[in-house]
């Protein structure tokens, strides 16, 4: 809308411009009015300058002799004189340029002009004396620190918790004037903990036992128990990793050997809770079974030079393990970070048997980048070594204990997965500010000090009060303004949703899409969990992504196509139809017993009287498969079922 309005303005001004002679520009010109408020350099001005000006007037570029890396350079002006009259935007040449009234001298010189609102903000900034906080340099983008940081954990004040996360959170809450809320009740906690660790709903007997247990330490004991179920744990977390590492049973590339699965290696690594540094080491410097990650996806034909397997490896290592976006810097020096084309090629060259020629926007430059990891302070890769030794060196550097960013990136992903919203969002952009630097840094350092034990960090988070607070809602926009008040509501993954229905009915249809052999026979029933199946329209509609690209976060929101699939798709219909029969034979001794079972399993609670009445009415006098099927469907459609509160 802003732009539309701006165009109307522009039309008007162009008319005015035609009438006025060029000499009359300053006093009479009708520029968009200055914004009528105090501007914030960081919020209002810096993004505009970075987006529109810095490319030619910062980072060593000085078109027209004008540089604007820092405030003093802006004041110096250009070859032709002052560009800004501090305090007087009406007479500042910059205002004239960015207003675009004169197409022969406008800034930016081509492409899109600033919006009326943006011009107004720049004017207000000039009028208000060009405020520019110390330390901001448009020639450089803000970078998060690399080293791990020891965090001094305060003593708990009002809360009872030894967990450093909680004590840091208490300080955070105090600063934000938030009262530390009470924890959720046992049943909600259990439902969260089960789904987040093993990806399944708490079975009624286990939930009942947990609720009846009156030992004060029972939540910690439950977490301990869940984390020790190695197979179920692996079968839940493998989905997270498959999305991140682009591992799937089908997809582009497989058709002619241009891709390789790592399922076997991945499953067993998770089952064994392989230390994260070793886990990543084996992905970067492959062992038998883990080669697929570095191999990437190879399409036949000529691909863009930014998409060769070596470049894919560099981009994926940057994104997944370091929260760095090298995609831009694979074609040209990045406009959104300090990473350069040379940095990307330097990393990619580790994975290339032959020297890689740098291509800028797919055009060969004749240059070659020196082989290196992004942060040379962490160590060097010897270009004279053969490829496999270089991969080893790189893996060592990447997973080094001094690489705090490596640990931060991962603990942030864990936090986001468990609490619905990362300490930093998006999870792939680790140069952004966390909402609690202390919690992030403490978790990362603690992770390193505990030998990269993933389950250790999971335990710390799961047993914290922070994890156990009542859930909150967040619309996913303007993450800069996020304030933590409790875990953000999550949606079950496609796999968790389907597994829940399979578990309730104890009906697990479907042929595995992988050769992986695991013992999943329970009481005579082979429980084939959803992650093992090939993508089908049902799980796709529920959010299982195409893994041709990295998927670090699935969308938490529902779509119409998904609702259609749930309402009339044959996969769910068949599953429920077949499952209902089994459900009746296992739990259909009485209608009341059945209702209790369905609610207790599906929602983790008893049905209210009103609900019981509605459901019993639906079931009718005689329990029939059809009616039970429909009750289960109705329950499964409820937000209370599909969401993790």
């Amino acid at each position, binding site marked *: 809308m802003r732009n539309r309005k701006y165009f109307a303005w522009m039309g008007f001004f162009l008319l005015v411009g035609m009438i006025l002679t060029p000499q009359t520009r300053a006093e009479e010109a009708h520029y968009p009015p200055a914004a009528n408020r105090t501007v914030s350099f960081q919020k209002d001005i810096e993004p505009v300058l970075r987006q529109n000006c810095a490319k030619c007037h910062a980072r060593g570029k000085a078109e027209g002799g004008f540089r604007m890396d820092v405030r003093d350079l802006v004041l110096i002006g250009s070859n032709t004189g002052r560009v800004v009259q501090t305090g007087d935007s009406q007479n500042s040449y910059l205002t004239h340029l960015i207003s675009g009234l004169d197409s022969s001298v406008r800034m930016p010189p081509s*492409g899109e002009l600033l919006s009326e609102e943006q011009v107004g903000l720049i004017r207000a900034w000039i009028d208000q004396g060009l405020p520019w906080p110390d330390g901001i340099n448009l020639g450089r983008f803000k970078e998060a620190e690399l080293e791990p940081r020891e965090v001094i954990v305060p003593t708990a004040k009002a809360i009872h918790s030894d967990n450093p996360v909680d004590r840091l959170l208490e300080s955070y809450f105090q600063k934000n004037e938030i009262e530390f809320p009470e924890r959720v009740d046992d049943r909600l906690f259990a439902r969260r903990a089960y789904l987040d660790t093993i990806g399944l709903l708490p079975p009624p007997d286990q939930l009942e036992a947990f609720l009846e247990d009156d030992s004060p330490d029972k939540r910690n004991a439950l977490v301990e128990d869940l984390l020790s179920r190695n197979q179920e744990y692996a079968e839940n977390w493998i989905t997270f990793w498959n999305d991140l590492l682009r591992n799937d049973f089908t997809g582009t590339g497989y058709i002619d050997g241009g891709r390789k699965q790592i399922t076997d290696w991945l499953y067993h690594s998770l089952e064994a809770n392989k230390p994260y540094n070793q886990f990543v080491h084996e992905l970067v410097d492959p062992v038998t079974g883990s080669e697929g990650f570095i191999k990437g996806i190879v399409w036949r034909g000529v691909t863009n030079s930014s998409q060769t397997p070596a470049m894919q490896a560099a981009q994926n290592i940057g994104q997944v393990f370091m929260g760095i976006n090298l995609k831009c810097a694979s074609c040209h020096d990045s406009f959104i970070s300090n990473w350069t084309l040379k940095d990307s090629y330097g990393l990619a060259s580790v994975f290339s048997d032959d020297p890689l020629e740098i291509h800028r926007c797919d055009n060969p430059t004749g240059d070659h980048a020196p082989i290196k990891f992004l942060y040379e302070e962490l160590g060097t890769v010897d270009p004279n070594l053969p490829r496999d030794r270089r991969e080893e060196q790189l893996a060592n550097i990447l997973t080094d204990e001094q690489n705090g960013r490596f640990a931060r990136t991962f603990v942030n992903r864990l936090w986001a997965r468990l609490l619905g919203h990362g300490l930093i969002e998006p999870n792939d952009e680790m140069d952004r500010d966390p909402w609690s630097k202390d919690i992030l840094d403490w978790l990362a350092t603690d992770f390193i000090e505990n030998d990269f034990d993933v389950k250790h960090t999971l335990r710390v988070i799961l047993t914290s009060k922070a994890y156990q607070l009542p859930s909150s809602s967040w619309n996913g926009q303007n993450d800069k303004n996020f304030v933590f008040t409790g875990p953000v509501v999550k949606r079950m993954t496609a796999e968790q949703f389907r597994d829940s229905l399979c578990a309730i009915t104890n009906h697990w249809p479907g042929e595995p899409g992988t050769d992986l052999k695991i013992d999943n026979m329970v009481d005579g029933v082979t429980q084939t969990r959803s992650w093992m199946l090939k993508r089908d329209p049902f799980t796709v509609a529920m959010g299982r992504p195409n893994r041709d690209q990295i998927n670090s976060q699935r969308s938490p929101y529902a779509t*119409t196509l998904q609702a259609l699939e749930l309402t009339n798709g044959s996969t769910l219909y068949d599953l429920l*139809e077949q499952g209902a029969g089994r459900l009746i034979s296992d739990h259909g001794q009485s209608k009341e017993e059945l209702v209790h079972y369905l609610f207790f399993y599906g929602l983790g609670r008893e049905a209210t009287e009103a609900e019981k009445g509605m459901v019993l009415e639906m079931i009718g006098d005689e329990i029939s498969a059809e009616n039970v099927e429909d009750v289960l469907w109705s*329950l499964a459609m409820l937000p209370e079922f599909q969401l993790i509160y």
Partner: protein
Amino acid sequence: MNRHTEWNRRDFLKTASAATLAALASNGPKEAFGNSYENPPALADTMIVLWMGGGMAHTETFDPKRYTPYEKGLGSDQVLSTFPAIDTVVDNIKLSEGLEKIGSVMDRGTLIRSYKAGDLGFILHSRHQYHWHTGYAPPLTVAAPHIGAWMAKILGPNNPDVPAFIDIGQRLDVGEGEELKAFHQAGFLGSEYGPFMIPYPDEAMQSVQPPEGMSASRFQNREKLYRKLMETSPIGEFGSNYHKESLVRSMDKAHRLLNSPASKAFDLSLEPKEVYDKYNTGRFGLGCLLARRLTEVGARFIEVTTEYVPFEGFDTHENGHSRMVGMKEMIDGPVSQLVLDLEERGLLDRTLIVLASEFSRDMLVEGKPDLIVKGQVTQPDVIEEEKFYGMHRHFTDAGSVLLFGGGIKKGHLHGVTADERPCKTLEGEIRIENLHATLYTAMGISPKYKLDVEQRPFYVTKDGKGEAVKELYA
């Protein structure tokens, strides 16, 4: 200023409706910062892509060259077309024999003969189809949306009860299904804008009615129970949240779609038999009929495909001539009937029909004339068997695209190709970015429309550089 204000408002409404549909996710696409494209006034409300999957030879269809009938001992280098040319209702447009009916409606549309497919090294169906449908060549670091998903995202549905992006006739569990899935999707736009897949048009009704085996009354009862449980759910105690709202809203939309009068459009059995028969050349023909019915109730974007399955359909690696006879029978009646029916209903003017293929074919030349491609079809210098009589190699230097309706010139011919091998584009070259720009512009979308994905701009046409071919508009 009044005129401006009114114009702004109209555009604002359009933007707002699309914006309210936007998927909310922190890593999702964002309205790009400082957009300054101007969306053009729309010439059409609905777009129908008729996809000739597998590579349709231009010299055998819409760009006939010198005809050489089959005889044993024929030199391959003599053969440019295996069908004679026929006249159409437009004096300067000749088509290939077998396309008489399309020839009879050529006065309603434009024929482009100078489409040049992307130069992507090996000429591969799946990569070129990806390229045609997204405007970008794979692999990419972000998942590029299908052109239909862009339309769904930017324009929203034409009628809220009809999915905005409907894809008819392509099965994804055959042949190079994985490669097809890679572009039959909304990519970073989010699956809300993805295709509503109808692989079998005569079974389309199944996708908008209760599951097979469930009676209408049972379906209603089930829905009623869900609603009652929803309303009384104690989850209300947690207050409103975006996730819950999005779930409830999606179920409402699905329910509305399933119970809407518009859903009848999916039911081909409601069509009079003589009309059904006119279209019924198989799944493609019935797909055209379904597309017409969906257009009548307000579809936004529909693709109907002859279906791409390796070595089937237009993917003629042998017996090109005889198979082309069948393919023309498949498309000639339904395509022309679609044009006529829409015209009769007064819908053609606001419906943009595009018939296209990922690339063309030739008997000898594969790709660039000077580059030998590995693994190309064997073609003997002298044809001793009829199976070698046809266009069996992949050719990108020219291709035909048909446009009807939606503000497009009528009876117009664009582009010139060589009359001798290689029958490449000589004049009026159109590449995918400009073809797409022409289509987006006709639909009221600027070719520079973009969204920020991972802080980078992503445009509907590659790098925002597509330019509409203005002379194609009426």
